[in-house]
């Protein structure tokens, strides 16, 4: 008797909540209330049904026989016999069978080709970016930059003019305090006005290296916590990254704006198997 009352109450509560949900919906909706009323509506059904099953239905325990193994030896023998028979008749047509295999194989290969349409050929796409000799560095609003536009220790994300927003060209400008910049061998003159430029794509897993700590001159990747030493050619100092951030050679054009001397001299971003064969 207790079970029936419990179940009945739960069903009534559920129905009331469902009505409430309808009212909330009609009067404009409210996410929290909707969730709670849905929960009560469904939960009431759950509680009611459990009470019903527990108190008012046969609960056993019932025992049913089970075959320890489902094996069917006689039937299996018959199957094997049929297979043998068909193998004997089909097997005689060995040449035809081979031709069938060839045609199926050829069709299989042909059927794979449409997959090729899904993407462009990698080719050299991973080896270069949109930066070219003379590309002006512009903000995502398209504004060109003079070295002095940046405050000392300031950072700015730039793209090559005409290719704003291209993923692989995102570059970080950092204006170092005068005299701090010590170029690596072969990179002399890459930092006009003490402004250096590094690829913003982490060489570990490709996240934008978003944080710059001016006090320690470190770039920090918020995804997997790789740290790059800006004064040492953005060498990885901590975290999982193994390669430095590539440096973009900078120059200043006739109007005093920052431009690239060339594309990056090595592939940007995370590694891939033939990265070394630039």
């Amino acid at each position, binding site marked *: 008797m207790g079970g029936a009352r419990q179940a009945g109450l739960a069903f009534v509560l559920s129905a009331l909540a469902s009505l409430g949900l309808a009212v909330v919906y009609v009067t*404009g*909706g409210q*996410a*929290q*209330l*909707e*969730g*709670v009323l*849905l*929960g009560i*509506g*469904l*939960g009431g*059904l*759950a509680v009611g*049904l*459990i009470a019903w*099953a527990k108190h008012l*239905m*046969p*609960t*056993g*325990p*019932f*025992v*049913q026989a*089970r075959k*320890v193994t*489902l094996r069917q030896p006689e039937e299996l023998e018959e199957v094997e016999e049929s297979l043998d028979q068909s193998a004997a008749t089909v097997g005689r047509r060995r040449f035809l069978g081979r031709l069938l295999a060839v045609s199926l194989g050829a069709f299989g290969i042909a059927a794979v080709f449409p*997959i090729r349409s899904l*993407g*462009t*050929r*990698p080719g050299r*796409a*991973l080896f270069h970016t949109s930066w070219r000799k003379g590309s002006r560095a512009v903000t*995502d609003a398209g504004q060109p930059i003079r070295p002095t536009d940046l405050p000392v220790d300031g950072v700015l994300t730039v793209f090559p003019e005409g290719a704003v927003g*291209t993923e*692989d060209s995102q570059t970080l400008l950092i204006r170092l305090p005068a005299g701090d910049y010590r170029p690596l061998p072969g990179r002399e003159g890459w930092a006009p006005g003490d402004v250096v430029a590094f690829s*913003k794509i982490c060489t*570990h*897993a*490709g*996240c934008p290296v*978003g944080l710059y700590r001016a006090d320690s001159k470190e770039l920090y990747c*918020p*995804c997997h*916590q790789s740290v790059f030493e800006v004064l040492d050619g953005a060498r990885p100092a*901590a*975290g*999982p*990254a*193994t*390669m430095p951030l590539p440096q973009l050679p900078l120059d200043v054009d006739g109007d005093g704006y920052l431009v690239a001397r060339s594309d990056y001299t090595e592939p940007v*971003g*995370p*590694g*891939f*198997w033939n990265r*070394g064969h630039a």
Partner: protein
Amino acid sequence: MLKKLAAWIDDRLGAAAFAEEALNKVFPDHWAFLLGEIAMYCFVVLLATGVFLTFFFDASAAKTVYSGHYAPLNGSQVSSAYSSVMHLSFDIRMGLVIRQIHHWAAVVFIAAIVAHLCRIFFTSAFRRPREINWLLGMTLMILSIFNGFTGYSLPDDLLSGVGLRIAYSIAISIPFIGPWMAFLVFGGTFGSPQIIGRLFIIHVLLIPAAIAGILGAHLAIVWRQKHTQFLIPGAAENNVVGERLWPTYATKSVALFFGVAAVLSFLGGLVQINPVWLYGPYATAQVSSPAQPDWYLGWLEGALRLFPAWQFTIFGLEIPNVFLPAVVLPGITFGLLYAWPFIEAWRTGDYAPHHILDRPRDRPVHTALGMATLTFYAVLLFGGLNDLVAKWFQLPVEAVTWTLRTLGIVLPILVGWLTYRLMVALRTDASERARHARAEPALGVAGAAGAGSGAARWGLAGFVAAGALGAWRLLRRRRGE
């Protein structure tokens, strides 16, 4: 009326014999057997809520200007995908609650699958004749994890956009075929606009259809083989003891569906999940911090963070750093999981059919291996939180990373050993108890229980105390600086 309908159906399908068998089919009753059912009902909720979402989601990367009820983003350039998610969250009645129920259902779905996997593993339910269902179940888990990822990548927000970028980087790290694979999946270099449309069709059609099909086979096999059972009174290898499908078991199962849906509704209504308006739209060169994936990918994220900065070059062939933690490790993980029933049968020489479940204590080595493995992945999960752990404990990230690297090696061994001792103690305890019960009832039971598990309990307490002491000392040293 009902009788007439039954006769009509039977006349056409001859289904009466099957219906009779089905209605009287006996199912063993144990709470742990419900974990798989919970996962299945989460899937039902996912389908129902997901269909609703598809009516409003626009799987397009085309740029548009957001205007809607969320004022802070009004007027900003976003993709149509992001805009449609904002629209369905803020302007469609019940849109937000259904979207949040959907996301919560995915989170609970995979949690239930993993719990179900643990139940199967620790009770050795995967042994002959259930290897096929183990393989199907493993495939369901992988598909579900993958579909979780494709799902939360759809809104094109800043958090998931960076997650996609990491997935692309992992893909190109695979030797020889990596760049090709990545270009085929993403339609070119990262940033090509096709990816959202592709993820969408994968997320709403390909994988759900595969899950539905494999789930059907999974259930049909359970039906055919009949469910395993614990060694309760009356149970034997050649029978099933429990409740009949009709009416009791079916009613309880339907009640479980409503219960699961109720919990998901409360969560969806009251606990905010994936607030894409706080992350903002995806934008090149931007990143949100801290950035964690959904929990079921946390171990992979942790592996990426904890794996040392190693990189190999073999004959000019570069093996990028991410290849080992993000491709090889999951390969080993899932490969071993798939092969486990066969490895274990081979190691133990036990090829006999089993329908009675073992308890974890019955097989200490097996249980210890399972616990050690779980511990390893739990440490990886914490690795995915290393920046947050560092913030909570006011430690440098580097120290947290090194601690977790060490724990990743030490803890599994420790937990495995401790589990082994505990299981052996419990087993001796149980067999002693049985012996004593025969000799001198009542008093002997209490005495043996105290002696047997006492040692194990002290061991556990000591372990916890040592851990707490270590953590406290670490914290104090940091504050002293």
